[in-house]
């Protein structure tokens, strides 16, 4: 009996750990990777603690533009969606009683239609309208189209929020206002609208977030105004670096701040209403209010972070790390060279051709380089090593996908390939795309050359 309960508790604990790990794990990894100096978002191997990705982020023209367009589109969508959603919900709850369910189905349909379809139809429809009107510029403007496209379904979300609130509205209040001499407009403005204010706030937040993260509708309508999601998607093609993680960290921090602030506000108004008993000693606004405590702690952490960011420089650490790695690579090369010499000696003894020993290694082990370099510029060395291997004739064309996103493979591959050629050759001229697009790789590439 007792052990059953214990088992249940352990199982529950385990479940919670797994559950929250599943929820928060990816965020934590991403968050940490923003502070790792490795050139690809990763936390293993941990190289140096750095803030440089934040500065990279703030200097990345494309991301900044993307954020700007996302905000413009977001605000536009909020205004349009909230207006449409509010009107729709009023119609739903107050006007047509007979047609209610039909109307509901129609108005809710955009949520069920794939975003891709909405995007395409928005594009096609407004193109037609624009043509009919003889080519009105604004109708084919990316921002205009994106706002319209997103609003088609975001307005439905907003409506659901409003309907939920409206169901708790006592129409008697409007009647009372009318009875006291208010016009219909006054009754709406002074009674219904204030009642809807919390719903309008949450619908606005919802609409903004939905707009901000939208990709599949926007991808058809953005024209020459790529929003952040579009930019990110495009960037993946050229290879990404941890500034993406830095962006994620900023977004997460803002979200948490927002959520905590709302919670603090809510608690305080509850406190005012006397729903929470006030304790002795602690200031009233702090008592029993974890949200406030967290908020304060987080603010301090943020200030501390910003402060250290101004003074801290990982340059020394980075130099150390590079030296250590260079030494490591060197050691491996030595070892391989020795092994190869031994093998050659053995082969000579057996009377076989030495070239075979050279091709065997890259064919099995070095299943790396190649396309990997396209997506992850940090794979550079390995690719460089690969082309070095071309010296011995067999390695280069065989390069497959293996370490596409894992710079950790790097040293191995480099060592391997270098080992394949009988002597380290200059890497630079043969290196593939990676370094072309990402100046951050320069150091590494240089280091390789030094090898």
């Amino acid at each position, binding site marked *: 009996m007792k052990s059953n309960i214990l088992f249940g508790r352990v199982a529950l604990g385990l479940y919670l750990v797994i559950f929250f790990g599943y929820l928060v794990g990816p965020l934590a990894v991403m968050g940490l990777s923003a502070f790792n100096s490795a050139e690809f978002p990763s936390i293993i191997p941990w190289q140096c603690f750095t803030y440089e990705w934040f500065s990279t982020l703030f200097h990345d023209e494309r991301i900044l533009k993307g954020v700007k367009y996302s905000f413009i589109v977001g605000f536009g969508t909020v205004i349009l969606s909230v207006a449409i959603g509010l009107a729709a919900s009023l119609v739903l709850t107050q006007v047509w009683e007979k047609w209610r369910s039909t109307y509901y189905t129609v108005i809710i349909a955009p949520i069920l239609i794939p975003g891709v379809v909405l995007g395409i139809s928005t594009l096609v429809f407004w193109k037609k309208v624009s043509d009919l009107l003889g080519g009105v510029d604004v109708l084919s403007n990316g921002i205009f189209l994106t706002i319209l496209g997103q609003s088609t379904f975001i307005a439905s979300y907003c409506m659901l929020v409003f309907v939920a609130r409206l169901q708790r509205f*006592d129409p*008697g*209040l409007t*009647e*009372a*206002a*009318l*009875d*006291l*001499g*208010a*016009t219909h407009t*006054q009754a709406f403005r*002074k*009674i219904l609208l*204030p*009642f809807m204010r919390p719903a309008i706030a949450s619908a606005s937040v919802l609409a903004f977030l939905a707009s901000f993260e939208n990709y599949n509708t926007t991808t058809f309508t953005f024209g020459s105004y790529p929003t952040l999601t579009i930019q990110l998607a495009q960037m993946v093609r050229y290879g990404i670096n941890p500034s993406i993680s830095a962006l994620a960290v900023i977004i997460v921090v803002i979200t948490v701040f927002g959520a905590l602030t709302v919670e603090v506000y809510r608690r305080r108004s509850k406190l005012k209403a006397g729903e929470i008993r006030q304790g002795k000693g602690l200031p009233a606004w702090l008592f029993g209010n974890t949200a406030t405590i967290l908020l304060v702690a987080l603010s301090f952490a943020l200030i501390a972070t910003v402060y250290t960011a101004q003074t801290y420089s990982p340059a020394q650490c980075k130099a150390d790390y590079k030296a250590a790695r260079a030494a490591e690579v060197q050691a491996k090369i030595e070892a391989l060279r020795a092994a190869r010499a031994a093998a050659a000696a053995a082969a000579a003894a057996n009377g076989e051709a030495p070239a075979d020993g050279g091709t065997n290694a890259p064919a099995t082990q070095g299943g790396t380089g190649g396309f990997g370099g396209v997506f992850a510029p940090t794979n550079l060395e390995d690719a460089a090593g690969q082309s070095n291997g071309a010296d011995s004739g067999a390695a280069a064309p065989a390069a497959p996908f293996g370490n596409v996103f894992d710079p950790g493979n790097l040293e191995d591959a480099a060592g391997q390939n270098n080992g394949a050629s009988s002597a380290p050759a200059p890497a630079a001229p043969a290196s593939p795309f990676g370094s072309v697009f990402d100046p951050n790789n320069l150091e590494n590439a240089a280091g390789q050359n030094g090898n």
Partner: protein
Amino acid sequence: MSSGVDVNLENIWIKFGDFVAVREANVNINGGEFFSFLGPSGCGKTTILRAVSGFLTPSEGRVLIGGKDMEGLGPNKRPTALIFQNLALFPLMKVWENITFSMEVKGASAAERRKRADELLDMIALPGQGDKLPSELSGGQKQRVAIARALCAQPDVLLLDEPLSALDLKLRQHMRTELREIQQRVGITFIYITHDQGEALTMSDSVAVMRAGIIDQIGDGNAVYDRPATPFVASFVGENNVFRGKITAINGDEALIATNRSGELRSKITPAAVGKLNVGDEAMMFVRPEMLQLGAGDAKSTITAKVVNEEFEGNSYSIYLEGDGGKQIKMAMPNLGTDPHRAKGETVSFSYDAHNAVVMPAGDLASE
């Protein structure tokens, strides 16, 4: 403030689809009167009030306020103010903003409104409570705020839809007197709705008793209580004992009824039924519990029955006797300190004065 205007309902019918909620209502309410609609739940009281205040248009008939036809005027254009069944205070506004809402929509300045609110708060005995939210008030206080809010609009007619129904008994009794006082002070016409007959009788100058969309009787408290027009009114307003039977003789405003279980009894014919009763008609005779007394009297007004139960209530006794059709006859007797108790099952004789009994054509009784 106006000294009250007449309200006339002329042949009002109100239908919701096929359902007739109000049937042929003709009501004349004098200016400055405290007029009540009394009836069981769902009989159409609120519906009538909504027609007066302009929230719905009667399917037929006219509403006149101060002699003026209200047709086509919305609730915001009528000189009425309605106190809703659930009060409908604006939850997000402070008390003083609630009270002066009618001034706000006319564009009065905040200072003006504040001043008026303070006056009204004094009047309803809530001084200094103007900055609270309605949710921070007690039931009775909310009640008074709702009244102040309605009065602030300076209506000619104040309509009250069961405003006391949510309060506990004590507060309800207190608010009754208070409402009556306010009405006498401001002197405007009050139209009051209730399903509580005690409330209607204590407060009103006139009462209209309604049953399922039909107004059975209009009159002052005495008329409704002592001379009910229909069996429904007789049984709905106050307690009453019913005796069913057939008319055997009619003599002016008196009749003899052969009752099913108590033999031939004599009764006055209720004024509304004079001339409508004929010998041989099914009839109902009503005698109030307090009109019965122990001991035999005139043969045609004496009843004998077995005692079922006796309840002592301090200042009075209630004696329950075996009655007609499973119903019990109730007798209320003042406690004079001398009465011996009656045993259960004992057969007793009791009598009444024929002037205090009313007979009328048989009809529906109010369900208990």
